[in-house]
């Protein structure tokens, strides 16, 4: 029962001079326990796609299926879809409003009708999942550091226990350690059986953590397949706005010279392959 998108189209500002097609016939699917990265340059339709997965935008043409539920205008369907698919927006720390961390993280579960006695457990579980200390429960989330705020925002989505999580550019504005923490959080969610749609323009990160990749350009799906197939495709064909990660590029050149026999984006794997060759 995957999260499935079939032949999805979306056009903004229909009938105005500013009309433009953001999505053109997109199809893909992601299973629970899988990470799908959607990559593409700015304006390629990534965020529009993210909003369709959470039923914040409804399909003008095409279909979005969450497990066995097709996204329609029906209020009950919308609520069910939004409960199943959590969405972490770009700069999610800007959605923070509550006085305490406890209230902020409990906002989602409370809206979904989780009983009061279960709330505390959910809040604690989510904070632990993002590596935040429970001593911060009573702290003002607006007074936390940027990285901590980002983790609070992710925890507030995890607390609703969604089957899928869509993250729109979660690495934007994070430093190297923040990026490592994010990678760990995503890996842990994947292990917990949550399907993840990771929207990014960071090809390096996408290749590192994903099972599947979808490459978007001007609203069209230029590629959909496994991460290994994507690495192969990226080396053979250039995609506008996407720069080949240096390690992958190096391994591609070395493979052409016959020094290594497969592509990799992991510097340690490449080093060991070269060591073996020597």
């Amino acid at each position: 029962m995957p999260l499935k998108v079939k032949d999805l189209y979306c056009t903004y500002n229909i009938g105005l001079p500013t009309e433009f097609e953001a999505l053109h016939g997109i199809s893909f699917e992601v299973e629970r326990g899988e990470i799908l990265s959607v990559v593409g340059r700015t304006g390629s339709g990534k965020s529009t796609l993210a909003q369709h997965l959470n039923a914040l935008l409804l399909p003008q043409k095409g279909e979005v299926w969450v497990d066995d539920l097709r996204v329609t205008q029906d209020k009950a369907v919308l609520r069910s879809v939004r409960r199943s698919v959590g969405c972490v927006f770009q700069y999610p720390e800007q959605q923070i409003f509550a006085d305490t961390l406890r209230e902020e993280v409990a906002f989602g579960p409370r809206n979904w009708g989780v009983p009061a006695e279960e709330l505390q457990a959910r809040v604690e579980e989510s904070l632990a999942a993002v590596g935040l200390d429970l001593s911060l429960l009573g702290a003002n989330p607006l007074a936390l550091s940027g990285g901590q705020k980002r983790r609070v925002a992710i925890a507030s989505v995890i607390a609703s226990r969604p089957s899928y999580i869509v993250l729109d550019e979660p690495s934007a504005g994070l430093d190297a350690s923040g990026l490592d923490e994010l990678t760990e959080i995503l890996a842990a969610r994947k292990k917990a059986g949550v399907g993840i749609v990771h929207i990014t323009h960071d090809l390096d990160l996408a290749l590192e953590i994903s099972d599947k990749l979808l490459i978007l350009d001007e609203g069209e799906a230029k590629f959909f397949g496994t991460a290994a197939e994507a690495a192969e495709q990226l080396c053979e064909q250039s995609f506008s706005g996407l720069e080949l990660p240096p390690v992958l590029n190096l391994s591609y050149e070395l493979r052409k010279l016959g020094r290594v026999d497969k592509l990799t984006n992991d510097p340690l794997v490449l080093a060991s392959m070269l060591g073996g060759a020597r």
Partner: protein
Amino acid sequence: MFSGNIALGQYIPADSFLHKLDPRCKILLTIAAMVAIFMCSSFPALLLWGLFLPVVIHFSKVPTRAVLVSARPVLVLIVFTACLHLFWTDGRVLVRLGFIKITLEGCLLALRMSLRLLYLVLYAGLLTLTTSPSEFSDGLESLMSPFARFGFPAHEIAMMMSIALRFIPTLFEETQRIIKSQKSRGADFDSGGLYKRAKAYIPVLIPLFVMVFQRADTLAAAMEARCYRGGRGRVRMFPLAWGGRENLAACLFLAFAALALLVERVFC
């Protein structure tokens, strides 16, 4: 503020006669149009203003739909005003339902006021649709500059208006983003009574205010970093110029307004 579409302050770029007009000319003519519309109360004169609108839209090259959408935010006000006139005007009674009565005079007055308000909003909408925020503030500053010698802060007011106009679409986008973000966490903005709905917007308003203050700080710092010290000594990259096009537009408009007022005089 939270409606699905907002046209206030939204400029639609195009290569048209109206877009090329000096903003001062457009502002003055819009004010003149508003005064003239309120001077008209007869239906033939109001009909003339209605017929003039498609002509102006044609010269603006702005889609008619965009102009009509610009009236949407004030539609409630127009309906409210119409209802007030419809039910609270004395005269020949057409329908009576208990204490509610609808009179012929009430119907006519409601229609007249609605048309006036609608025209007012549509003509004003055309001004903002064809004038970019920077042109608009330049035009205002220039029009207010004679008062500067009496200590009136013309430049500062124009700058404040320009910043406010510039940030309307940005704030609207940010609001939409926060609403979507909270909706995805199960927030419900569409059901319940007025109190419940108003309360549901707290998780939107708090992050919005935080963001507005942060943006204001950043903007002030960015302006200071570029040595902004108010209007004194500032020069323009593109000085405003009143030429033949503006004279032609003013003459055509005045001729039409005179015709409308003449019709008003005949039929009133």
